[in-house]
């Protein structure tokens, strides 16, 4: 698949050099009654907020993502994770929209999470950080959005875990969202999805360096976290794409621990993940995913009876981690509630990761879904 990553850095279709910023709020009370004090949220923005503040799109990231959705950080060669879709003239057009990309709480990329300092002890929370739900993540984002003086989001969009946040937004704040874009996502994890996350968490817990979450930064449970990421990565690609990419080829270079290219790919993915992610955060965020549930069938229909925005739901035939039937559950429940929804199942071979990759069809679906709403209002 062709990428436009480096060509765009100085090109017209990039948001250019960006910076992750931090908002600090006095506190946030979580669904379970505990309070995070202070509450910090890392975020980036692209484009300009209109004078009447009606053109904001909140972008929500997936499990290992962060606030850096588009453009380049100073000196970086690779752009933000959704740079294919956000920029001037792109699907989420920054000439028209003001994009806010916020980092979730519970993670380790700048927002409050296990690495943050506990106000009471002056030391990092680590495993004493309170349990955070998807709804809590959304409530934190709501503070950020309100801080900008934005009453109604023109849209909230995300894939995978980002899709769950977008869906939760439409339920938690039905009067504050006009459009909701949900890609490769679900209204609740199936046993299979929980199972993959459980294997990841157990790999971390089994690491001798884990020490019930109170590990030192010199001796982190790196092997456990790398294994967790390896399991995750298997689920992000399709069988077809793996066969095409790796087949039964031998590993590149001098890797002693594996006989196959796919093995060395996974080892690389696991090892590089350890450098940029925290093991405790991995546990917190995957638990938030597993506990997220708006139900299925009638339960989901009842949960979605409050929503008021229009929806675009995109699924991928080759996505076996969040298979299309889960997107259809959402669509059907919306339809029963007579909520306007478009559902597209794209026959893209890239598996779960499809929502991140460049795809002209997908780009125009998102662009035109947003534009049709923009022009109807305007």
């Amino acid at each position, binding site marked *: 698949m062709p990428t436009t990553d480096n060509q765009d850095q100085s090109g017209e279709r990039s948001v250019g050099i960006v910076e992750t910023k931090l908002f600090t709020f006095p506190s946030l009370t979580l669904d379970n009654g505990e309070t995070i004090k202070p509450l910090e949220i890392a975020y980036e923005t692209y484009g300009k907020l209109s004078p009447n503040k009606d053109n904001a799109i909140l972008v929500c990231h997936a499990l290992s993502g962060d606030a850096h959705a588009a453009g380049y950080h100073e000196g970086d060669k690779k752009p933000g994770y959704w740079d294919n879709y956000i920029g001037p003239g792109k699907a989420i057009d920054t000439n028209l929209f003001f994009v806010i990309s916020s980092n979730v709480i519970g993670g380790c990329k700048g927002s409050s999470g296990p690495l943050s300092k506990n106000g009471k002890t002056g030391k990092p929370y680590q495993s004493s950080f309170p349990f955070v739900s998807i709804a809590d993540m959304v409530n934190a984002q709501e503070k950020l959005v309100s801080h900008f003086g934005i009453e109604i989001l023109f849209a909230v969009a995300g894939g995978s875990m980002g899709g769950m946040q977008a869906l939760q937004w439409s339920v938690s704040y039905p009067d504050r969202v006009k459009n909701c874009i949900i890609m490769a996502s679900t209204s609740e994890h199936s046993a299979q999805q929980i199972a993959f996350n459980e294997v990841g968490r157990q790999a971390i817990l089994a690491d001798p360096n884990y020490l019930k979450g109170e590990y030192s930064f010199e001796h982190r449970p790196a092997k456990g976290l790398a294994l967790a990421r390896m399991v995750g990565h298997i689920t992000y690609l399709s069988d077809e794409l793996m066969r095409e990419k790796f087949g039964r080829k031998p590993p590149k270079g001098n890797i002693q621990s594996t006989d196959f290219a796919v093995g060395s790919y996974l080892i690389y993915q696991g090892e590089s993940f350890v450098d940029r992610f925290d093991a405790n955060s991995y546990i917190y965020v995957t638990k938030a995913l597993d506990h997220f549930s708006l139900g299925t069938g009638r339960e989901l229909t009842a949960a979605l009876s409050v929503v008021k925005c*229009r929806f*675009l739901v995109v699924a991928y035939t080759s996505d076996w981690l969040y298979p299309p039937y889960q997107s*259809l559950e959402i*669509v*059907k*429940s919306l*339809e*029963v509630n*007579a909520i*306007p*929804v*478009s*559902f*597209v*199942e*794209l*026959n893209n071979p890239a598996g779960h990761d499809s929502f991140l990759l460049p795809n002209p*069809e997908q780009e*125009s*679906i998102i662009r*035109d*879904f947003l*534009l*049709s*709403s923009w*022009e*109807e209002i*305007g």
Partner: protein
Amino acid sequence: MNTRLTKIIQEIDLQNRPDISYIANLIQTNERILDLGCGFGELMLLLKQKGVRVQGIEKDERCVIQCVKRGLYVHHGDIDHGLKHHLDKSFDYLILNQTIQQTLNPGDIIKECLRIGKKVIIVFPNFSHWQIRLSILLSGKTPVTDLMPFHWYDTPNLHFLSAQDFKDFCEIETIKILQTASFNRRREIKWLPNLFASLSLFVIAQNEKN
């Protein structure tokens, strides 16, 4: 009405689709409509312009993408197994515009449509059109005509029926026929429609006794 929608509608050639204008006239503002096999969404656009709450189902990916681009609400799926979740009588009309002959189980789908919709509009190519009759009689082969331009091996049409066949079906199943109309490419046909119409339209509803 926004300029984008008006522009798209202007681009659609409705000159040769008397059936679409006829259906658009039947439906009132604010009614809720489900268009089964909505294609590129021509009818849905006309209805949307009229202020009708319309959504569609379509299995062809290209059509679905085009509908989303046009700001229409469409569900990418197969009506042979995509209707069960809809509640009884949740739509004012269900529309099967040249769709029924392409489904696997037309009888079941029509009954399912009558459950979901207060009324059902059904349009299909009339297999008893004189050209088709003549073509079978003279050539002894499965007809290939303007309206059914496919061969037996590449046609999406799985079932062939005539206006008379459909009336018989409604009688056997005690389905109420509320209205009928017949068309050729350009206009409505009133005289001997089972012979001269290439398209047959029926508006049906569940018999209250059922």
